[in-house]
């Protein structure tokens, strides 16, 4: 995830000039150009169909059935909107997982971005060894979604874990963080925030783009450090903040691995880490209710779509693009 995040802007940027402003050449030339285009596209297109489009359509169909994954597809029964109805009216665990996921995203995402921006500001200076620190801070993101990291986390935050040992140095009696329902989700949030490397790198890149003349001009006008940050850095950085916010929110909602590992795939203790995607997984593969799980997935897709749309709509009011002529 971290890597694709970092790559996306550059891909977009390089693709844009590839589209010619005006088509040139003869009709035949254009035709063969189009054919060649499709030929070059075909591996991607086939991939898209085989591993994305067809399964997605299939899952949409399944979401209206009682498909249980073990029976052949030919035996499924069409149940209409029953799965969707059950989700909203007759499944406490569904609402439990919605609550868990929303509170996770609401708390972990802003904190993660704040930490990422703060560290990026620190690392944006030219001091000795800064490259090493950039690398070190980015490291947790590289191994970000991995199971190994979640296992390390569980062991660190056990009752006998390193974290409580550290607290013990100050005479503080620790808690069974991961095994206590009032703390398990918070522990997951800390893990998510700790993996701030990917947005940090993007922030760093954004900070490098801010023209130094602006700071010079601002300081000539008598702006202090904080005023410079508020009036120059933040507005100039707003497209990057926006980009990070959208991606990290989507990431936050999709949090699965850590919750799965921490709770041994149950969402426990007492449903405290029952993230939406984990609940979906349990419904599909443990309870053999793939139809219901598919319906959950589609509602999830829709919800994330709406949230992203809201970001894009409201973004108009606070995201400033420096190359103003284009707008």
């Amino acid at each position, binding site marked *: 995830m971290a890597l694709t995040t970092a790559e996306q802007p550059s891909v977009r940027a390089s693709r844009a000039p590839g589209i010619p402003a005006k088509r040139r050449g003869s009709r035949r030339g254009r035709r063969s150009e189009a054919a060649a285009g*499709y030929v070059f596209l075909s591996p991607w297109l086939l991939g898209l169909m085989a591993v994305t489009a*067809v399964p997605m359509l299939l899952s949409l*169909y399944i979401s209206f059935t009682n498909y249980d994954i*073990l029976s*052949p597809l*030919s035996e499924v029964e069409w149940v209409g909107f029953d799965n969707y109805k059950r989700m909203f009216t007759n499944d406490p665990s569904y609402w439990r997982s919605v609550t868990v996921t929303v509170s996770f995203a609401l708390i972990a995402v802003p904190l993660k971005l704040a930490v990422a921006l703060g560290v990026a500001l620190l690392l944006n200076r030219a001091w000795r060894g800064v490259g090493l620190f950039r690398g070190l801070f980015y490291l947790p993101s590289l191994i970000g979604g991995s199971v190994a990291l979640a296992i390390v986390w569980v062991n660190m935050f056990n009752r006998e874990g390193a974290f409580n040992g550290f607290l013990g140095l100050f005479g503080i009696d620790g808690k069974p963080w991961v*095994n206590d329902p009032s703390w398990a989700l918070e522990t997951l949030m800390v893990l998510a925030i700790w993996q701030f490397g990917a947005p940090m790198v993007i922030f760093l890149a954004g900070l490098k783009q801010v023209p130094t003349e602006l700071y010079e001009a601002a300081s000539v006008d008598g702006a202090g450090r904080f005023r410079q940050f508020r009036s120059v850095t933040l507005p100039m950085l707003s497209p990057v903040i926006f980009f990070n916010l959208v991606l990290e929110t989507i990431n936050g909602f999709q949090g699965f691995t850590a919750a799965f590992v921490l709770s041994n795939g*149950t969402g426990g203790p*007492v449903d405290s880490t029952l993230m939406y995607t984990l609940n979906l997984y349990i419904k599909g593969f443990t*309870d053999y209710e793939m139809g219901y799980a598919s319906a959950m997935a589609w509602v999830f897709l829709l919800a994330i779509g709406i949230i992203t749309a809201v970001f894009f709509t409201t973004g108009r009011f606070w995201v400033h693009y420096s190359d103003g002529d284009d707008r």
Partner: protein
Amino acid sequence: MHPPLRTHRRRLLRGLVAAAIAVPLVLGAAACGDDEGGGSSADPNAPVRLSVFYWGSEARAKLTEEALNAYKAKHSNVEFEVTWQANQGYADKLATLAAGGDVPDLFALDDNMLSDFATRNVTADLTEYKGNKIDVSKFPPSLVEYGTVDGKLVGISAGENTQGLVYNKTLLTKNGLPEPTTGQTWEQHIDWAAQVAAKTKVPGTQDPSADYKAFWVWIRQQGKDLYSGKQLGFTADDLAKWFTLWKGARDKKATPTPDVIHEGNVTDISKQLVVTGKAATSWVWANQMPELKKNTKDELGVVAYPGDPSGQWARSSMYWSVARSSDKKDTAIDVINFLVNDQAAVNILGTDRGLPSNMDLRTAFASTVSDANMKLSIQVENDLAPKFGKAPQVPPKGHSTFRSELVKAAENVQFGKATPEKAAADLIAVVQPKLG
């Protein structure tokens, strides 16, 4: 628009739609193809590649590989394609394979999955092979019944075991404490555990209120059962009483704190509390003794669960099943028959999947055992066998939901998030509709 481009696009769209329709059809067809028999007319010496899938520890994988090699030594035409993995995720993987129409020819199941897979026809009906290709005549009758779902023989018991209360003998001896005994009452057990906790600072017993097998024994001792047909065999009151029993035990400090209990609930056998030193007793299966012993230097002992031992029964620990879609059923059945009815194979496999199902071979095997813990497992099973009650029915579809909901309900009570009555009522409301 340019006509060629448009036709291209139209063709492309048509292709997309066709693919969207065709793929499910193909999947469906593949999944329901090859209903019966298959392979019976083939030459018995023709080369066969048999896929085998099971869960377990590395030790089990080694033993199983050895046993399969012994089969191969006699049948050089058979090649095995073995995959195995930890218990965690096994059922998911198997379900996914089933969804893709790619079930392994031979695979392991347990009570959690047997009914789910059998009622959905993933498993082949082996009834017609009984007596000729697969011999179950030397099995205790309950073990044969155990593989039967809706009148079809769908699983062959890979071994027999029973519930076992494993305790840390070294700890007790060192502190001059008595060992638990078979036949003690539940109250006696809890008092004993409180006494252990007071003297040793190690909680005497793991609170098993989230443990379905402990509840199962207890509810049978109350004259009921976990299931009655496709219904739960007990009421919310019964379950609330069970939760209250253990609430009392926690109040007496006979058990660890809820977070440690939770740790014991979700962990695998190698980190059970009796092994990690967080409790003096763990509620396990008697055949897990050798596996437990590998993880501690202390000496372990094992007795029956508290209460009347007739609440316990000789249970099939797990099953070997054949895929209905397999075209190598004959070979698969022959391999199962070898694993359960050949003395060499039985001696190799030992008590890893429970005691050998075949009684004659079990006796012969027991006389050769040297491993002290394996010996103890066998002894407990043999001591209890005359006191065992009638085996309950095979759990219906939805058993795995009951198990996970029991953990949730019990932990809700332990962490003080619900009263025993509320947690019990919630569980019944969620689980009952899932059974069937």
